[in-house]
């Protein structure tokens, strides 16, 4: 197969996005995840106990125990899954683009060139604010599927990133 004839740029010499060292999220962000998870945990268990309390005749005791075991197993595996996937998340800002990678089973990498960024937003959730964390969001004209949101960045870093990207956008105008 004759690739890129008539093309002065050697494809091998181009910078490779897949070899960029990605920066992980702040370890503190795990707390945010765990807190959100705890809320979910309480809701599920609350629902289960309510059902058990009001409708005990619905199943026999063994089945109740099996259901409880199933729910616990599900929740625990979700925690493990969340923690593992936390380590898989990473981002990098190159001179001309932003890279965000995530996903445990399917590794997804999104790259947005700065000259396609429409605007940048920094936002904080309730727990994140207490911990001094923020999320950076980059929006393009490609709609929801192509926007990236990088959570778990230290607030001051997030602001710096925002300034950086805004600066890049300004340059292009």
């Amino acid at each position, binding site marked *: *197969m004759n*690739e*890129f004839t*008539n*093309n002065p*740029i050697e*494809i091998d010499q*181009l*910078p*490779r*996005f*897949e070899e960029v060292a990605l920066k992980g999220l702040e370890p503190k962000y795990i707390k945010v995840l765990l807190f959100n998870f705890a809320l979910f945990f309480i809701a599920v268990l609350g629902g289960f106990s309510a059902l058990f309390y009001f409708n005990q005749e619905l199943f026999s005791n063994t089945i109740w125990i099996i259901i409880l075991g199933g729910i616990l197993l599900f929740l625990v595996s979700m925690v493990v899954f969340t923690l593992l996937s936390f380590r898989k998340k990473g981002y990098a800002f190159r001179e*001309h*683009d932003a890279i965000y990678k995530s*996903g*445990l*089973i*399917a*590794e*997804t*990498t*999104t*790259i*947005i*060139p*700065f*000259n*396609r960024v429409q605007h940048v937003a920094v936002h904080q959730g309730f727990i994140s604010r207490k911990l001094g964390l923020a999320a950076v969001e980059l929006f*393009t*004209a*490609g*709609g*929801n*599927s*192509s926007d*990236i949101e990088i959570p778990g960045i230290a607030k001051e870093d997030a602001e710096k990133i925002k300034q950086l990207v805004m600066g890049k956008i300004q340059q*292009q105008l």
Partner: protein
Amino acid sequence: METSFNQPQRQSKVGILVMFLYTLQKLVRAFFPLILVFLFKTENLNWLYVIPSILVFISLLGLFAYLSYLNFTFFIDQESNEFVINEGVFNKTKTTIHLDKIQQVNINQSFIQKIIGVYALEIDTAGSTTKEVSIKAISHPLALALKTRLLENETVTTHEFQTDVVPEFAPENTEKPFIKISFWTLLKIGFTSNYLRSIGLLFLFYTTVRENLQSISDDENNAVDTQIGDFLEAQTILYGMFFVGFVLIGIVLVVNVVRTLIKFFGFTVSKQKGSLLLSFGLFNTKNTIVKPEKVQITTITRNYFQKKLDILEIKIQQASANEVQNKNNSIEIPGCSEVEKDTILNLIFSEIPQKGVMLKPNWRKLVFSLFLSIGIPFLIYTFIAIYIEPLAFDYVFLAVAYVIFVALMVFVGYRNNRLFVNDDFIIIQSGAWDVDNRIIEIGKIQALTTSQLFWHKKPDIGSLTIHTAGGALQFDLGNFSKVKAYINLWLYEVESKNNKWM
């Protein structure tokens, strides 16, 4: 045509009639099932009550139309360079649009407007989510003058615009269209395309009608239902199915042809200052301008029949401010020949995109699609047949037919699924029956996404999603090293050139 728009002015007087008819149309459309049921269900209608109430209703509507006519004014504010529209009877709305923000001004004519002899002027703004503005009744010269004034700020417009926009009513002004889609071509298109969409529409129509009838008149409908039931029982079910199948195919074809004819009758494409001007419609004449720089994805669709008849369909997706608008921003050109297609592509891209290096999906994609479309349904079927309803085994021949048909479709679809890359374009080919070729310019890329399942690392395959302002395109399970190399190249192209993508 030195009409000044600096003073607030109203629409044409006949605008009252237009507003009246529009509101009436809207109301009738909304309450159509109710009215129908009312007329048929109520026995001994007392016309002494009905007629006066209709009269009162109509005069109220007329009054409303008159008031909304009075309250609708528009003018151009010279100082702030804004176009201002005031409207509303009870809730007053003032809309101001900065002239720089105006992307497009369309002059259209719906069926009602055609009868009355006025035009609608619609203003398209980009970059904001604000509602588009439209003036519903305006005379043609005035519309043209206003359009010229509104677009004066833009660099490449004005005088030529006036002459080109005129629909078929003023042939002396129209530039000669280079593509005219004949009645015959539309017939061909109607017969050979959009089967699925027609079936969907039919289904939707059937369910809504049924629901409406059922909710109000239960007994009558039951009678019909049992009749159909008896009929089906009397015949063998197989025979019934063939019958239904034939009727369905017949209806789909007729619906398709009629829909295509109404929507696209008199389709013409002409050039205008480097843009494409499309004009079409039997009852509602629509004029749309396609600016090449706004085009994001161009889809060329053709199936086996259409290939034999040398016709194909082109769909153009333009950049849009928000995703809701996306649908409105896709424009179809039904039925052009190979040569006409090349002319259009030439206008959009200033060259004809060639298919370059080809990438194929991995065989795992075929296996996975087969599993999804045959494996799972087959498992469910066997499960039902064994554990729940042994009768299902009587229809084994149907299951076999399904398997053969779907396997064939999936296989052909897999064979057709290709990614072509050359220096300036990416072309993704897909589809089993209707084969789509979707073309993107590399400069129009907004973002790139790769995705790889962890067990696909070893065989080195993965998926690619290309995001544009007109939607995203996906290519699954290609050679991941090659895909990544292309991504690096495309990123280089996009980042080093700073192309205009809109």
